[in-house]
């Protein structure tokens, strides 16, 4: 398979099909970053499109000796944050985008326990919502580590902070996320206390 970096060079040489391949390879990953940051489908799709246009226009700046993925993630991050600031950080989550609780799902390797499953699904919904309430720097680091599965050096490159600070930021982001979840959990009057509250 042709590497991302080679496709980038081919694009610079005028091969639009190479760019199309890059779009296909990265559109879902870029969208997942943008969607988590924007929190709203239509805006996320617009911004994702904008990301690829930015990538196309800035491709001449790409250093082909480096990896393409962190570079495009950085553009995705910057474009999203810029769009967010333009709309003054107002996050709107459409009702039709609120994830439906999938009661029928089962978790592999766990015994079937209706109460447990219900709470897990409830927790999933809480986490979905709680992420949108996080400050964008925390949101970003969580997306990059847990959704994009990037290592600390890659995250550091994208966020332009030192590698040593990544672990601290992840910890703070998880703590902040936990606080929001606990608060929501209590507000919903869930029967069982969260283990994390003990």
């Amino acid at each position, binding site marked *: 398979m042709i590497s991302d970096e080679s496709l980038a060079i081919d694009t610079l040489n005028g091969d639009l099909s190479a760019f199309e391949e890059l779009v296909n390879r990265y559109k879902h990953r870029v969208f997942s970053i943008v969607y988590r940051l924007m929190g709203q489908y*239509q805006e996320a799709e617009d911004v994702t499109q904008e990301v690829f*246009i930015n990538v196309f226009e800035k491709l001449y700046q790409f250093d082909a000796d480096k990896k393409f993925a962190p570079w495009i993630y950085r553009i995705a991050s910057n474009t999203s944050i810029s769009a967010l600031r333009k709309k003054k950080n107002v996050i709107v989550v459409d009702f039709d*985008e609120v994830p439906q609780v999938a009661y029928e799902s089962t978790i592999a390797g766990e015994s079937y326990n209706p109460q447990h499953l219900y709470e897990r699904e409830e927790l999933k919904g809480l986490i979905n919502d709680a992420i949108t309430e996080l400050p964008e720097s925390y949101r970003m680091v969580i997306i990059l580590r847990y959704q994009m599965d990037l290592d600390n050096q890659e995250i550091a490159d994208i966020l332009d902070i030192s590698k040593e600070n990544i672990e601290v930021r992840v910890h703070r982001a998880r703590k902040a996320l936990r606080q929001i979840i606990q608060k929501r959990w209590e507000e919903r009057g869930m029967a069982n206390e969260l*283990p994390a509250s*003990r």
Partner: protein
Amino acid sequence: MNCQQVDEHIFSYIDSKLAPSLSSDLESHIAHCEDCRAKLDFARMETDILCNELFMPTLHDTFTADVMAAVGNNQMIGPTELAATRNHRAWYTRTPFWLVATAAAFVLLVYTISPDFLAPDTKIANQQSKDLKVAERNVASNAVIGGETTKKLKQDSQNESMQDEVSIDEPSSFYLPAETAIDETGNQVRTLAGAVPDEVNNELMKQRQSSPDRDRNDASVLKAPISSTMPKVINMPASFEIVNSAKQTDGWTFTYEGDGKQLTVSLASANVPMAMIVKPEAAATDSSACVGAACEYVVNKKSAVNSVNRSVVIDNVNYELILTGELSVEELQALAERLIIEK
């Protein structure tokens, strides 16, 4: 390790980022602490959800085609034009029409100059009537560009203009490759709307009439034709120094002083293809010292911009790119990306 320390390291442990010795300590503690074990299980469940189970809508099937349509037929044109071609309008394309039109048609590059600043020039007097007509025509022509076929025309005009402007050597007097006109109140006004020969203007008008874009009202159509409105190079005498630069709502204003006179240059940031390049001999190399020099550069996307030493080669002439005190490298880059010289 105690319970509080487990709290501090629990996420790093789950993510396999904890040092082996600390991991062992944590495991030893968890082996005999039921509460911490429950916390660990809960944190694992959270992590599992974060990694694998978050809600994620899918992109439309036409997403790739939409992107390719946006870039495919618009290579090497500016982001504003690209945005205008997109199916979904981005936030930055939602600029009010009147603002875009104003920026594109009227705020291109305006010189405000005191009457006594202009040296007497019999040519100016002789050309006043004609210049006024030309200036009026330029304003009209701002809104009538479109279509690929105008490029050649623009390029030819620009190349001639570039050669003239680069070779100009009038260090003792202020020179701008611009037209001087008389406004309604009888004052001399120097605009940067370079003269458009009648035949060029007529050609532009004809092409506009036959252009498929003739009925469009977006910014890409309203954008001023480069050759008719903007000199590519402004030679600023070394005796003039910038004394103030300020970011405005839709651009920048630079104030220069020299020989006891003052000049204000307004530079619109949106939809305005233009460049201001300091004469090589006036260039400073240290950006921290660049408050005393004008100004920015704009290049074609195909041009190699050396962001390290900030230089650009146009027609085999190397120009030093100078930052004012107001613009960061990123802002300069952003400016360069918005503004284009077509060669």
